[in-house]
């Protein structure tokens, strides 16, 4: 995973998604929910960037904003050399062929009134001028690719199991030969034994078609398995971004540390010896984020400065980005990083 290896397929700069709050007699705008508040990251061609965080931290909104499913409040999103942050409908429609999405709930993301062939074929109808026969053939190919029996092409989604439905969703995302796929919690709704099947399928497809993934999940262990680099979000901002091994081995941000330590270990022996940081309290509302660092209300290593100044998100070591006052000085950061207990 050397840095020099590949081009940046996706560049996100200072992305903001604010949803206005209206109140009062005249429905005036009294504030905004800062779902995504200044997020920047790059994704290299062929890699998988994991985006983790707890519910409500803005990771799904971030994913959808990157695909321009929302109109951005501000910021820039450049995919495959094209700026789509302010693209018009025409340019956007062309770009849809490059970027696709796999959704969380395989039940909800498939139109219950359409057949499998209809669902997988929809992007083809929208974007490709194909004969009916060619399209049929392409649908079969896609079904083969995701491991669905061709015989089921005329079935409806409710006749399938969760894992199979997620395969349909993946086939739909693959239909246009995209370069970039956002997987928005693709395994969250699946049973444990099925999750592994889907993750393996995603990995196989990545290899086969040279895909680039943004893998959004709250499941830190699965992200560790699939991602090359991992970004941790908290309350609309990226707290830490680093290569996978580094972040799991020595997390820098106190939030990352707490998050990792909260994951229960499926081994009673390890479980009993492990040191855990249990965070106090709840995540603040994104409509009223705290002054200063947004983690300051729960941070076990909170300092005075945290309540006043929002820490800058910056690179503290090659490829390691963190937004924390503990690493104010890049020098110290490196030292601290070295000194961090695992």
């Amino acid at each position, binding site marked *: 995973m050397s840095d020099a290896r590949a081009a940046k397929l996706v560049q996100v700069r200072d992305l903001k998604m604010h949803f206005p709050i209206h109140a009062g*007699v005249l429905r005036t705008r009294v504030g905004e929910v800062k779902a995504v508040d200044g997020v920047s990251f790059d994704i290299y061609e062929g890699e998988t960037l994991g985006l983790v965080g707890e519910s409500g931290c803005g990771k799904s909104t971030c994913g959808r904003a990157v695909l321009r499913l929302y109109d951005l409040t501000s910021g820039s999103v450049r995919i495959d050399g094209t700026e789509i942050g302010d693209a018009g409908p025409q340019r956007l429609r062309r770009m849809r062929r490059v970027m696709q999405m796999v959704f969380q709930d395989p039940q909800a993301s498939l139109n219950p009134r359409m057949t499998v062939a209809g669902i997988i074929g929809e992007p083809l109808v929208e974007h490709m001028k194909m004969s009916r026969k060619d399209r049929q053939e392409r649908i079969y190919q896609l079904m083969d690719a995701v491991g669905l029996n061709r015989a089921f092409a005329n079935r409806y989604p409710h006749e399938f199991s969760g894992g199979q439905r997620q395969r349909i969703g993946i086939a739909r995302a693959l239909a246009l030969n995209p370069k970039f796929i956002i997987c928005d919690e693709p395994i969250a709704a699946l049973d444990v034994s099925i999750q592994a099947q889907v993750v393996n399928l995603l990995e196989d497809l990545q290899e086969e078609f040279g895909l680039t993934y943004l893998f959004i999940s709250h499941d830190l262990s699965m992200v560790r398995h699939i991602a090359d680099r991992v970004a941790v979000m908290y309350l609309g901002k990226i707290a830490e971004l680093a290569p996978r091994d580094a972040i799991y081995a020595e997390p820098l941000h106190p939030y990352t540390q707490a998050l990792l330590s909260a994951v229960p270990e499926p081994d009673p022996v390890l479980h009993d010896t492990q040191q855990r940081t249990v965070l106090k309290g709840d995540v603040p509302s994104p409509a009223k984020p705290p002054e200063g660092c947004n983690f300051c209300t729960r941070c076990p290593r909170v300092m005075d400065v945290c309540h006043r100044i929002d820490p800058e998100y910056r690179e503290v070591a090659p490829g390691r980005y963190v937004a924390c006052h503990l690493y104010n000085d890049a020098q110290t950061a490196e030292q601290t990083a070295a000194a961090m207990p695992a």
Partner: protein
Amino acid sequence: MLNYTIRRLLISIPTLLFISLAIFLLLELAPGDPMAQVPLTVPPEVKQAMREALGLGEPVHIRFWKWIVQFFWTEPLHLFDSWFGTAWAEGQQRVISWQTRSPVMEIVAQRMPQTLWVVGLSYIIGTLIALPIGIISAYRQYSIFDQIGTFVSMVGFSVPTFFTGVLLIVIFSVKLGWFPSIYDTTLVVNDWSSFVLQLKQMVMPVFVLALYNAAQISRFMRASMLDNLNQDYVRTARAKGLTERVVVLLHVLRNSMIPVVTVIALGVPTVFGGAIITEQVFKVNGLGQLLITAIQANDLPMVQSLTFIFAVLIVLFNLIADVLYGLLDPRIRYD
């Protein structure tokens, strides 16, 4: 909540103005003539003089403006005067019915009691019958009780009231002689026997209307109960060891009542609107009958004022329903 209410009130002002204009123009376009009832023996020039005396000669916009002023300014002033004995509205022209040459609002006030007695009572009775039926039907879904309840309420929907009304009169007034066929609006209830008379004359119209109301509300109640009986919190309540009575009549009912209460509130304006057909059948000369006779006589000021009053009530009770919803359901905050 307060903000929400104020905002809704503000929005309703242009809505109501628009409605009043729409009603006015519609009535204006109607081809009828208030002179239609005048016998053919009255010569045309006399009819023309009568028309002019009603103010029909003036242009539309002036009449609309006059009506607006009379309705929104003079009439409230009169009300104020009659409450406090002042004389603010002295000498100001009120909204006058063409048919009776008397102030529209006085007739409306006169019709209120019988309308409220018959239509209002039937609404209350209908609701009181409907709620338990809806609750039991939902709790015992697909049981015999549910089937019968469903059937009865469907019948309540399906049979036109002018049919049930006449049928009841023939059976209970003509054949059996139990109840009077004609409602006496002048009956004063001051002792037991007059009370019994009042009850007797109300039985049939109230029954006809209550059946219809009960049919509707019980269907809502049943659906709402069914929605809530499957909720997780019901299981929680059972897991606490609460009796079924408490589970159903407290936990489920309280939640199910939220949409039903708003439905009931939305139905209240129809009470004031009267039940045109039932009033007609039983000669309960309430607001519904007033409206229909006014329409038949082309008494435009009366029709205009009545329809507008209904519109105001509908808007008002829509608002009340929304506010009730907010009050009943702690999750809803309209701001």
